[in-house]
């Protein structure tokens, strides 16, 4: 299941990443913003993606920054919060 979610998340990140930064060079635990893959406000698009596809209720959970800033953090969040 996690592998399927991983492919789905990576496929989505390719649609919002900066065009000249290969996604493959970013490790799963790297910060997506600090690695230069996306800019900080693009986190809004990740939030929208997770709300729409995994029905995560961001208003109802206590969100820690690390949960959204790396691929592994996003996958952990999906595993814990998706409905």
């Amino acid at each position, binding site marked *: 299941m996690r592998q399927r979610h991983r492919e789905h998340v990576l496929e989505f990140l390719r649609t919002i990443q900066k065009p000249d930064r290969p996604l493959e060079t970013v490790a799963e635990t790297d910060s997506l*913003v600090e690695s230069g893959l996306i800019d*900080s*406000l693009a*986190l809004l*698009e990740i*939030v929208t993606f997770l709300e729409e596809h995994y029905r995560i209720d961001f208003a109802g959970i206590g969100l820690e*920054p690390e949960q959204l*800033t790396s691929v592994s953090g996003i996958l952990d969040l999906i595993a814990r919060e998706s409905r």
Partner: protein
Amino acid sequence: MKRHVLLTVGPLTEPLTGRHWDAPAVTREVAARAARYRRRGLRPGDRVLVHFGNRLEFFAELLAVWRAGAVAVPVDGTLTRVELERLVETVAPRFSVVDDAGGGAIARALPPGPTVVDATEPHAPADVHALLPEDVARPEGDALVLFTSGSSGVPKGVVHTHASLAARWSALRRELGLAAYARALCLLPTHFGHGLICNSLFPWLAGQALFITPPFRPDLLLRLGAIVDEHRITFLSSVPAMWRLALRVARPPRGGTLRRVHCGSAPLPATLWESVRGWAGTPEVFNTYGLTETGSWVAGTSAGPFTPADGLIGPPWGAILHVRRADASPCAAGEVGEVWVESPALMRGYLGQDELTRRAIQNGRFATGDLGLLDERGWLHLRGRERDEINKGGLKISPAEVDAAAEGCRRVTDVCAFAVDDPLYGQNVGLAVTLTERDDAAVREVHGWIRERLAEGKLPARWWVVDAIPRSERGKVSREAVREACAGRPPLDLTRILQGR
């Protein structure tokens, strides 16, 4: 010499690192840095580039430069080598101040000329007492140069004097009071007029506490409600793009300390405005209006109860607002025209660009390039823009600057940058280009060329390769016509092209 306003520093805190300087510590830091500048020969009127911001040392360097009667020029720390060369040519700085974050790269990229100073290196304490800018600088002397996006790739430096800055702060104290600004949080870049002059220096140089963070850090926005509570923040300012993210991911503050929020630099839709009010737990969410040239905030929704509405700004703050027709006659109440600002807080002019200054300031009034109306109460309502700049989440980008960056590339035969709608930023940069060869290799070369010449925030987000850029008989390009021509076609898949897939 008549003083416009009493200036006194407050304490400084970095919420993310926990670093804190109380007012006496600020005094010591400024004194030591001022002594360092004196030893190194900084003279009144010299200019000092400051390549970093949003940390304690930035504010100490700023006041130390002022203490020497010199001029501070805070700039974006991510400028490219080409932009830095142009900037140094325009500013002719005596010193370039860097920090321990990006300083090495900047020092290597800088052309010969300025002496590089590391603001984070240890320095000897100095026995110097007063630090107020007014104590050492002439009110009519230049204090600050802030760069906005200039046309044709020429940097446009907005010059403020100590007197114009003091006039802005004095007007804000009179119109807004200080009580709500007792503990002010700045999330905006300190090389922007909005972030520096108003969000930071207005409260901090009135002795209030300033909490300074790196700009637009995602981990910061996710924790925004918690930061407000932990530091008992009473005030923060921001731009609409920041709120679009914060409202989704940050829990509201629970402590009830937040008394006032300002939002500016880009249009604030009424629905977003109401949502910010709900999040902040206060009706005092003011939509502010101002440009770097006016010392930032020059009007806002401060007077009594109001209902958020698209385009609503409010009464002027220390300025006279004029709305004029094309023939320069004044508009009637409710009639849309160009907004002009008359204020002692206007810039002295654009650095080294007298003709541009003469066009911008006529009879003591500044032409904003914005369209709006004044209602029967004298409240300002904005209705659009006459100038063709792109407003990317508050960052103003001149399309002519983007054109100029692309034009020198051997693969480019014609180019036109324009604003495209963006759900996140409000607007972003679109680029239509004609090429010598219409293939992926040419696109990669043009992208690499532009990337070396424009800071990352200004890079075009969506590209179209076209057969021709439509022009009028006089050769003038209509950016709106190009935008409409591209709107019906999908942009290039830049990710695929740049990664050679």
